[in-house]
């Protein structure tokens, strides 16, 4: 058991809006902890379009998804937010003293009077191939990531996919596997050329089998995979032996555990008021792509505005006896001190 962390604001989601919330809350002296299932901050900007230019951030005529993230991180740095990355925010409950306890699948517990849901469209999770019954094999014989390589020693491994993950794990696992088969829908890959070359060498040496095929069926009992039905380019089906299956088709966005938090949801979005961006549950705010209100636009700039107003309301919950002073960063030596520039 880890001891729970106590802070002012727990933020679910380290996308651009969660990151800017750190800044706005920080200006008001509120401390923040962020949880994100991805292994790095930036949300959609870094996961879906790190290299693509964005043209509608006020004051930045052009900035890529990665650059915007880097700048937001730099901007929030004076407030030293704590990141809990590669963790799913999985539970939310109210304590007797009125504060909230946010728990993650890694056992982290964050206690705070305010929770900000900046979860975008939800969390990024691996794409699950549409093979009947695959759920029953997950985490026993079907894995979407390799955490411990040893787990795969001496197994008959099937890998599906044509990107870097599929190729990298083919190369890494081939030496310890009993057998390794790679399947992909075409004889071309969107992976680093040297990995593709190395894979082809292993195929020539007979150390890896490659089929242009797709996975149609999984067979076995109690989650223990034994055989897999594949369909080749000619649509003819055949079976191979495999007791571990690793599909690598990238990530997709699913609302995930937030659906179970007992919050009011409308078509997978959290309705909020446009004064505080608070949900219908007091102390739980929703900003960025995850919220909905009349006139909502899913744009980064709208999320930034929402973060600023949310911070004002969060202050009153976290510091009920203090008076909030409206100040400009340009002229307030107090704010400049916090930013480390005065």
């Amino acid at each position, binding site marked *: 058991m880890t001891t729970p962390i106590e802070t002012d604001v727990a933020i679910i989601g380290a996308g651009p809006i969660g990151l800017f919330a750190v800044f706005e809350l920080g200006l008001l002296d509120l401390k923040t902890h962020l949880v994100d299932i991805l292994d790095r901050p930036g949300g959609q900007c870094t996961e*879906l*379009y790190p290299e*693509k230019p964005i043209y509608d951030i006020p004051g930045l005529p052009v900035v890529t998804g990665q650059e915007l993230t880097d700048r937001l991180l730099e901007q929030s740095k004076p407030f030293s937010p704590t990141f809990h990355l590669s963790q799913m925010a999985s539970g939310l409950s109210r304590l007797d003293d009125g504060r909230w306890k946010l728990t993650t699948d890694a056992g982290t517990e964050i206690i705070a009077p305010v929770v900000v849901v900046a979860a975008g*469209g939800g969390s990024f999770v691996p*794409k*699950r*191939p*549409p093979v009947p019954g695959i759920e029953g094999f997950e985490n026993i014989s079907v894995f979407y990531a390799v955490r411990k390589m040893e787990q795969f020693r001496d197994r008959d491994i099937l890998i599906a*996919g*044509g*990107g870097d993950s599929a190729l990298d794990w083919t190369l890494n696992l081939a030496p310890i596997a009993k057998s390794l088969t790679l399947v*992909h*829908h*075409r004889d*071309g*890959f*969107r992976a680093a050329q040297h990995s593709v070359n190395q894979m082809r060498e292993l195929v020539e040496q007979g150390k890896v089998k490659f089929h242009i095929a*797709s996975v149609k069926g999984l067979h076995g009992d109690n989650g223990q995979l034994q055989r897999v039905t594949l369909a080749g*380019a000619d649509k003819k089906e055949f079976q191979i032996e495999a007791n571990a299956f690793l599909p690598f*088709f*990238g990530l*997709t*966005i699913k609302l995930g555990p937030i659906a179970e938090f007992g919050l009011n949801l409308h078509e997978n979005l959290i309705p909020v008021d446009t004064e505080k961006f608070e949900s219908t549950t007091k102390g739980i705010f929703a900003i960025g792509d995850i919220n909905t209100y009349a006139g909502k636009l899913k744009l980064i700039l709208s999320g930034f505005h929402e973060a600023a107003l949310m911070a004002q309301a969060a202050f009153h919950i976290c510091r009920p006896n203090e008076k909030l002073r409206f100040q400009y960063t340009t002229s307030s030596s107090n704010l400049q001190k916090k930013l480390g520039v005065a």
Partner: protein
Amino acid sequence: MKIIATDRDGKEHILEGRDGWTVMEILRDAGLPITAECGGACACATCHVYVDEEWAAKLPDKSDTETDMLDMALAVEANSRLSCQIICSDALDGIRVTVAPE
């Protein structure tokens, strides 16, 4: 132009395409289960459709980005396309597409 789209339950929808819009936008706005996470940037493969063989041949070839991105789609077939890369025009009047499984 008309788009004839079959959803995941096998139900057919006849949709009015708009010149210059993408097929993904027409399907999404009609409420078909096209996630289109990246909003048409050819960066997510969640707008995957099967194009009827007869029409598949009439479409412009896939760009390298589309071919690469299809590697991240599930259950890819020879007639798989990313619908955000198909642009509506009168030449495609009557095109038949089927939403791919998730």
